């Protein structure tokens, strides 16, 4: 069956401009200094936002398709903070991730979460 392939194509077309426009507009490579300084700060800001949102916000979708965000408290908080501490201390992302996964898996297997 290939009925949904056109939908995939439409979704790709909806996604591509946000990925491509700044990369393809040559002017983005030669912005004034304040704009370049701003873009330098986008990295830490957006990665921290991704981490925080994926840790403390959960989304449920109603049968009508409405997305309802809610505040989530769980062991994932502790795991992410531990990962941050390990990366800051040991400069080793993989070690931080492994510790975070082990912590969450251990707590869940023990039935505490």
């Amino acid at each position, binding site marked *: 069956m290939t009925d949904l392939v056109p939908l995939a194509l439409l979704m790709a077309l*909806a996604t591509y401009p946000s990925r491509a426009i700044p990369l393809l507009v040559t002017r983005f490579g030669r912005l004034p200094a304040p704009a370049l300084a701003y873009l330098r*700060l986008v990295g830490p800001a957006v990665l*921290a936002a991704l981490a925080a949102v994926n840790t403390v916000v959960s989304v449920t979708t109603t049968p009508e398709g409405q997305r309802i965000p809610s505040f989530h408290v769980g062991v994932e908080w502790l795991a992410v903070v531990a990962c941050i501490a390990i990366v800051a201390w040991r400069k080793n*992302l993989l070690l931080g991730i492994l510790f975070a996964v082990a912590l969450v898996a251990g707590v869940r297997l023990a039935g505490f979460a």
Partner: protein
Amino acid sequence: MTAAPELGPARRQLVVDGLGIVATALGFGFVYGLSARTAGFSPVEASAMSVLVFAGAAQFAAVGYVAGGFSWLGIVLLTAFLNARHLLYSAALAPYFATRPKPERAVMAHLLTDEAFALSITHFRRLGRTDRWGYWFAAIATTFIPWNLATLAGVLAGGAVPDPTRFGLDVVFPAAMAGLAVALATGRRELVAAIVGAVVGVGVSLAWDPAAGIMAGGLGGPLVAMALPGPPMREHYPADPLPLGVHPDAPERLIDETDARTSSS
């Protein structure tokens, strides 16, 4: 003056950092494949999503909406909304690739994901210059290939597979993003941008939607950090790449009109 790291060690660090991303792409690509199968997707349809859309959150949402019988127009609009954050990634990476040919940048754009951005921007900043190999590695080896292989495995496999969240794999993504943010927080302004980005991101997510929250955090964090008192930041985007064997202490080359003329000739 602090010497920039050599290319070899920086790439090895990138590969090690990428292992966690591979694990999460495999785990959740597999779950996506299973979910797509359950929603009635064929292997071709599920794989088409992973190859053409290549955006996990939007793909998971689409599976739910297709199963719920929602209109294609609604699904496409939601996809555009969920993936709007890529504008920020693309803008932040654009100065690093300004001298590359347009067709190459067009392909780079299709492969731009949260993971590819996080790994490559950290790699470039660690290295002090652009490394195209690093971008392709982050985009293809750690994300595109594992995600697509796992999608296929998930949609072809049966349902008797344990939930990866049971093994804590759901924490890999936020932990990796947080760890990579730490690596980028090399100064006071970067640290403030990260903290404000996280706070604004969560606030807007709870008030509206996580997709909007991530955009708001990514836009608002740098604004607050830029407003801090102190000397203005100067950003250099050394052009890509120094040939292997060139000493990293060699003077950095800035992207400027000369480079543009050179690349277009």
